[in-house]
């Protein structure tokens, strides 16, 4: 089957192509060079349409224990948003915490073809993968959480060499079937179990004497030396705390040039100026990002309305439980590895703090100058559900629209921000970088996010529209691995995406330490902790795609 997509306006930043009319050829799910004489089986006329690679959400909580707690505890949020079964689609529901099936359909209908769960506990990886297995169409993968796990902190307290740490990190990535490594409130989730209520960058864990700074260094080095393409994914210290921008700046410079991705940076960019003792640190943070080329960020934009916050950071979630709306919340300690906290939340446009959070996120987007190093997220569902992405894209691309909304927010928040005077509007090319080419590069997907030869034919086609929210809400076509799955914004075919992983090398001697550790201290055996390739393939519709490693450092 050879398909030709004819005459679209191609935007593919991976090749530096910006709105150039051209044809694409698809065979066996891949983009191929123009064939010299082969018969075209199907031709689709895309003249006048905008053609991009399928979008990639590099940070979205779509599967795993805390997401499922959020689903289970929010029946009232689902009830307003039920989705009936069709011939093609299973029924489902959920606005803030959608069912897995609905999440897959909705992502595809928005032109997204991949999403990455950013917080997979090793011990909960089986559940995360089972949920993602039930998420149709999109590709998926996840970042495995380390940094509050007893084994790592114990190794660090014993001053084990970096090679030993690298081995443990590689073993964990491999057997959790992950594509990267995440650290959440480094050491803080662990410290909460010892009743510490905050842990600043240089504050010691009461038991191990280890600081978050040490943990970040060790893990960032491990990821880099193992050649894992995705840099250490960091949810920093002091999330949501007024004045946390100092810690964030210190974290950026403190990593000393190692590649590091700082996630939902909006929640870490707060000052303490003004009558409310809460101010925007976005300008300083953006300046630091601009100056430190080793740093990438995603924003974690908040948008107004009901959502639910689900995080591994139970230290900070517990501290914020009084803001729960509706008033119910969960905090868990998990298996001497990590924890989680789930707190429903309603962002209100007449709240000074929430309005300023909205502005801080947008300021960050607009003040960071390199779109290859900043990514479009709401930290779904923590800042807002992923279904609000078209709205967010319009906020970035349309200054008038942005300023109109801003003018309706809490007046003192408006006065506290320079957002209204920011002229920048994102271009389609820049949106394509953030959501396609840049995201693929960041996650380490060699065959996605681009429209050049050999790439998977994950393609989204839009009609350009003055109203960018409209444009990005309903693509004309979405192709997943060459198969048309969406037409005129509606799903027409259900396929099942692959799971992207990396398999860094490790020395098997690590199991000589891990096996007795599991036997003595854990309630599951090491062998049962590991997730086999067969479990990802599961009933046959799953698959694994092993992404190539970079040239690593010494191991």
């Amino acid at each position, binding site marked *: 089957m050879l398909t030709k997509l004819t005459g679209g306006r191609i935007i593919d930043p991976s090749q530096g192509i910006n709105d150039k009319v051209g044809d694409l050829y698809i065979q066996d799910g891949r983009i191929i060079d123009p064939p010299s004489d082969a018969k075209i089986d199907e031709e689709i006329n895309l003249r006048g349409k905008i053609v991009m690679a399928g979008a990639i959400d590099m940070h979205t909580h779509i599967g795993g*224990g805390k*997401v*499922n*707690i959020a*689903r*289970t*505890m929010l*029946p009232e949020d*689902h*009830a307003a948003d*039920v*989705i*009936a*079964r069709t011939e093609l689609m*299973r*029924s*489902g*529901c*959920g606005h803030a915490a959608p*069912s*897995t*099936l*609905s999440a897959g359909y909705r992502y595809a209908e928005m032109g997204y073809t991949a999403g990455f769960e950013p917080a997979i*506990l090793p*011990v909960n990886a*089986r*559940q995360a993968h*089972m949920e993602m297995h*039930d998420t149709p169409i999109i590709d998926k993968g996840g970042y495995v959480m380390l940094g509050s796990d*007893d084994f790592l902190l*114990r190794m660090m307290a014993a001053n084990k060499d970096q090679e030993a740490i690298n081995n443990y990190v590689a073993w964990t990535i491999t057997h959790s079937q992950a594509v990267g490594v995440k650290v959440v409130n480094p050491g803080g989730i662990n410290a*909460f*179990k*010892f*009743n510490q209520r905050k842990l600043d960058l240089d504050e010691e864990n009461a*038991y191990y004497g280890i600081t978050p700074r040490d943990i970040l260094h060790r893990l960032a080095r491990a990821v880099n030396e193992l050649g894992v393409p995705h840099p250490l994914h960091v949810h920093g210290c002091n999330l949501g705390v007024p004045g946390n921008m100092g810690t964030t700046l210190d974290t950026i410079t403190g990593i000393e040039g190692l590649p590091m991705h700082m996630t939902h940076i909006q929640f870490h960019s707060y000052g303490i100026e003004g009558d409310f003792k809460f101010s925007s640190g976005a300008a300083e943070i953006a300046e630091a990002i601009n100056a430190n080329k080793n740093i990438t960020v995603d924003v974690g934009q908040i948008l107004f309305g009901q959502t639910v916050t689900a995080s591994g950071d139970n230290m900070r979630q*517990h501290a914020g439980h009084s803001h729960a709306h509706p*008033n*119910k*919340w*969960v*905090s*868990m*300690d*998990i*298996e*001497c590895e990590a924890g989680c906290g*789930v707190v429903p939340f309603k962002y209100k446009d007449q709240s000074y703090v929430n309005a300023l959070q909205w502005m801080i996120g947008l300021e960050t987007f607009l003040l960071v100058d390199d779109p290859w190093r900043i990514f479009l997220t709401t930290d779904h569902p923590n800042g807002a559900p992923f279904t609000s992405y078209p709205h967010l894209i319009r906020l970035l691309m349309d200054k008038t629209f942005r300023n109109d909304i801003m003018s309706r927010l809490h007046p003192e928040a408006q006065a506290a921000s320079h957002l209204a005077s920011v002229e920048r509007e994102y271009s389609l090319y820049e949106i394509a970088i953030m959501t396609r080419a840049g995201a693929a590069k960041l996650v380490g997907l060699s065959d996605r996010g681009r429209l050049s030869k050999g790439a998977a034919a994950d393609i989204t086609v839009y009609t350009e529209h003055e109203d960018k929210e409209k444009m990005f809400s309903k693509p004309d076509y979405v192709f997943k691995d060459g198969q048309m799955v969406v037409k005129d914004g509606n799903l027409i075919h259900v396929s099942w995406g692959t799971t992207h992983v990396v398999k860094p090398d490790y020395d098997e001697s690590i199991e000589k330490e891990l096996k007795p550790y599991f036997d*003595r*201290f*854990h*309630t*599951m*055996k090491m*062998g*049962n902790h590991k997730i*086999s390739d067969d*479990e990802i393939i*599961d*009933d046959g519709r799953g698959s694994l795609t092993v992404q190539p490693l970079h040239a690593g450092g010494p191991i």
Partner: protein
Amino acid sequence: MAESNDVCVFHEVASPFCGIASDDLTIEVSGQTVSVIENGDAITKKGFETQITDTEPRIDGQEVSLEEAIAKAADIVNASQQPVIGGMASDINGIRAAMALADKTGATVDSMDSDSAFRNLLVLQDTGWMTTTLTEVRNRVDLLLVVGSDIEADYPRFYERMVWNEVSLFDQDTSSRDVIYLGKAPSGDTSTSPNGQKAQVLACDDNDLPEVLSVLRALVNGKVIQAEQVSGLTLVDLSDLAEKLKQAAYSVVAWASGSMQFDHAEVSIQMLNEMIKDLNETTRSSGLPLGGKEGSTSVYNVSSWQSGYPMRTSFNRGYPDYDPYLFDSKSMLANGEADSLVWVSSFNVDRTPPETGAPTVVIGRSGMTFDQEPAVFIPVGVPGIDHAGRSFRGDSSVAVPLRKLRDSGLPSTFDVLSAIEQAL
């Protein structure tokens, strides 16, 4: 059925039969005979060792082929206006297939252990909680408070694995851990420490727990109580307990909702969990809901991720519709609201369907016997014995892999339910 006289020994086998899902079992398989030879207990032995009897499906008591049985089951579901898929005791893939079938046929899904599970789920949905998991308990607990439950009856190895473990991660002398029972007294002595220290028991009737827990929470919060006695317990003892909870560095409050069979036990469980939240203003304390035997934790997890809601969800209107009271399968059947039942029970031959006049399809473990022969009986393999699978532990964060231990030729629940869906 494949016959073999070879004896195979499997190590580190996980048990789906009890909520703590011990995965250190050694199991010997000789032909179709399975024996737990290391680390077994009454529950895992019964679970693994129950023999295969019937392997042929039946329609109205007459042996038929699997294809005929599946066709008949599909006919029953097709002819039904309001089917119920009950029991739901299977591995993840069996439950997935049940959800898919329910979605397609407009059925209502329910679990055989819903009464127990909802005592917890209603709390989760109303106020939430702070909980912990088994490995944290094993390494951190300094005070274990057991409320309204006799843990060892349903979780025989709980103390061996989670409390009296010789070594723990944080330099604790585990034998000095405090164990206190509030409500029921323990039926055995596994809660007695290796030093011979017996658990303290503050005994009261189940029906008095609502009052006792209210007072305990008040005492934790420093409220002054005028009474000197509460439901037979002295205020001195309760004050002492409140003080111990406040002084503990990592107390764990365990309850088995299945044992708390009094009216509106969920309100008492909520009281307990609000007390745990209060304690966490100054120290650490966590709840440990014990449950999840025979796949019941898997049911609410799969149902929640696929539909947004736990069980007691109806697909009759074409979309998931959740009501923990209206969609109680027992009352739906008793009131004649449901007109067919697909009963899934692949772990335990004693868990048979409720008596009902509605035509019933049983997807059940071989060896199951019935007072009332169902319209269709399809014997299936046991997850973790006859086929591979996965099952959630009672603490929900952990799912264990289940292995295929023998080649019985019995189909899995997933195979059968998927075939029924195909045959509709």
